[in-house]
């Protein structure tokens, strides 16, 4: 029973959701998907508790045994507790800085932008809420917020994420250098293509004195490199990409079929 029930549930859910794709009936097409989404969220919330338990267990052990780098574990656990506590603080009223602006877009929806402001630790934070509702209806303004949580999010978490993301620029440089080192004729070809795309991407004709010379004139009213770049990106690049995408789609479909029919059972530890 223990080994047969999960594949059976998987089969039923797989077939039902597959049929759902082909049915235009609203209760099937929309409501069922919404129900699945809500169920996933509920499971996710419970799983998050398991995740946090794992995090506390791992870092707690490090601190307890004074393992190398235990100080970082202490910072991690402190942050978990502080941010979770801040999140539990009841929401309070916030000042609305700018007047409510409601604009109707081309799809007939009204986008409402509300800019709010509050001061914390000497910093004045601003956040914009976007609310989308049908045009012509009363638009409720969300006046509740947790400023301290916003402050942590906007002034600690976001800059740290942006910093990590910005490292990518340097990594791209080193990866590009490694990719275009001429070790074979294919690498040489890649280098030539990369230079053409790079030159096509930037307005080289605007470089003083030498710009027009480097640009090598125009083809069909656009600069030569821009034209060559579009040829490289639109034809060989797109063809290769589409080949990969077709393979991915087939591979994904095959994996789904194997899971629906219980041939592959990763959700049971790979065993049946």
């Amino acid at each position, binding site marked *: 029973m223990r080994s047969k029930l999960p594949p059976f549930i998987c089969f039923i859910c797989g077939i039902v959701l597959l049929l759902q794709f*082909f049915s235009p009936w609203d209760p099937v097409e929309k409501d069922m998907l919404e129900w699945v989404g809500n169920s996933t969220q509920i499971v996710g919330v419970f799983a998050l508790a398991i995740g946090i338990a794992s*995090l506390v267990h791992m870092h707690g052990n490090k601190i307890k045994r004074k393992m190398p780098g235990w100080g970082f574990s202490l910072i991690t656990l402190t942050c978990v507790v502080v941010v979770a506590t801040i999140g539990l603080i009841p929401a309070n009223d916030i000042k609305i800085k700018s007047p409510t602006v409601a604009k109707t877009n081309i799809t007939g929806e009204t986008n409402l932008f509300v800019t709010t402001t509050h001061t914390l630790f000497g910093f004045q934070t601003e956040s914009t809420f976007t609310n989308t509702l049908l045009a012509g209806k009363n638009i409720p303004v969300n006046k509740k917020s947790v400023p301290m949580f916003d402050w942590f999010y906007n002034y600690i978490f976001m800059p740290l994420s942006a910093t990590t*993301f910005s490292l990518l620029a340097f990594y791209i440089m080193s*990866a590009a250098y490694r990719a275009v080192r001429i070790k074979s004729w294919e690498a040489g070809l890649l280098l030539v293509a990369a230079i053409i795309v790079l030159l096509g991407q930037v307005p080289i004709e605007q470089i003083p004195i030498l710009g027009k010379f480097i640009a090598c004139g125009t083809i069909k009213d656009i600069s030569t490199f821009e034209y060559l770049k579009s040829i490289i990106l639109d034809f060989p690049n797109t063809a290769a990409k589409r080949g990969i995408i077709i393979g991915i789609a*087939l591979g994904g479909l095959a994996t789904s079929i*194997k899971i629906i029919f219980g041939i592959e059972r*990763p959700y049971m530890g790979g065993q049946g």
Partner: protein
Amino acid sequence: MDISQWHIKLRFINEYFFDFNKANVLIGLVIFGALILYFIYHARRGKKLFVRKIPAIDSVEEALGRATELGKSVLYVSGIGYEGDVQTIAAMNILGNVAEQVAHYDTDIIVPCINPIVMTIEQELVKQAYTRAGRPEDYQESSIFFITTQQFAYASAVCGIMAREKPAANFFMGSFAAESLLLAETGSSTGAIQIAGTASPSQIPFFIVACDYTLIGEELFAAGAYMSRDPLLLGSLKGQDIAKFVIIILMIIGICLVSIEVFFPNLTFGSIGQIGTFFKKIFDIHMFTI
């Protein structure tokens, strides 16, 4: 019953039961599913199937052997996808096989997770793998752990693990976004042998550049079956290859017919141009509009 009554019935079915606009998708799905099930059936009956080599998978043993020789751990990252993402599922299948070999070699494995549900499934997968390898007592639940659900915080944490623990082999399998190069370049700087696999088209070039071996696109889905050598799973690979062959043939025919239509618009004999237009419609979602 006259035609108009049939039309009314079809409209009713189209409105409530079956969207005829998606009929071509269903036909494709049935044909493809049948092909896969046919080859699985043949594999089950003991027919030997030839499956092409995947160099990146053949190198897994080399990477694990190196980690064992150096007495270092193996890092396995299963991407940033959620548990329902087909790439994450493929990454889990590979993890099962990698963990089994890791258990055979008596090496340590580190599996940092971005999703708590994925973590729970992977704990179970690795535990089963250790049991299959005959070493259930060596399994450590704490080696598969949750970090955070935030993309860049996760990337930073994994980069930190690579810098501190210096694993001898890094596996990056599954769904990746901007953090792919951050992980692969950091791993490369630690001198680890790196094997990556993703079906995210925009991240494939980054992995090709920064890793020693890369599973490109569909190879990620094939890897689990290839490693397990399970005839049932290999049968599905064969079906997949045949389906791809059929699609290539259809594409070539389509290209020829559409080209004839474009270059010879006035050609009427045999209505080749019209056949080309019909061919294009097969791949169009609104083929059977009522």
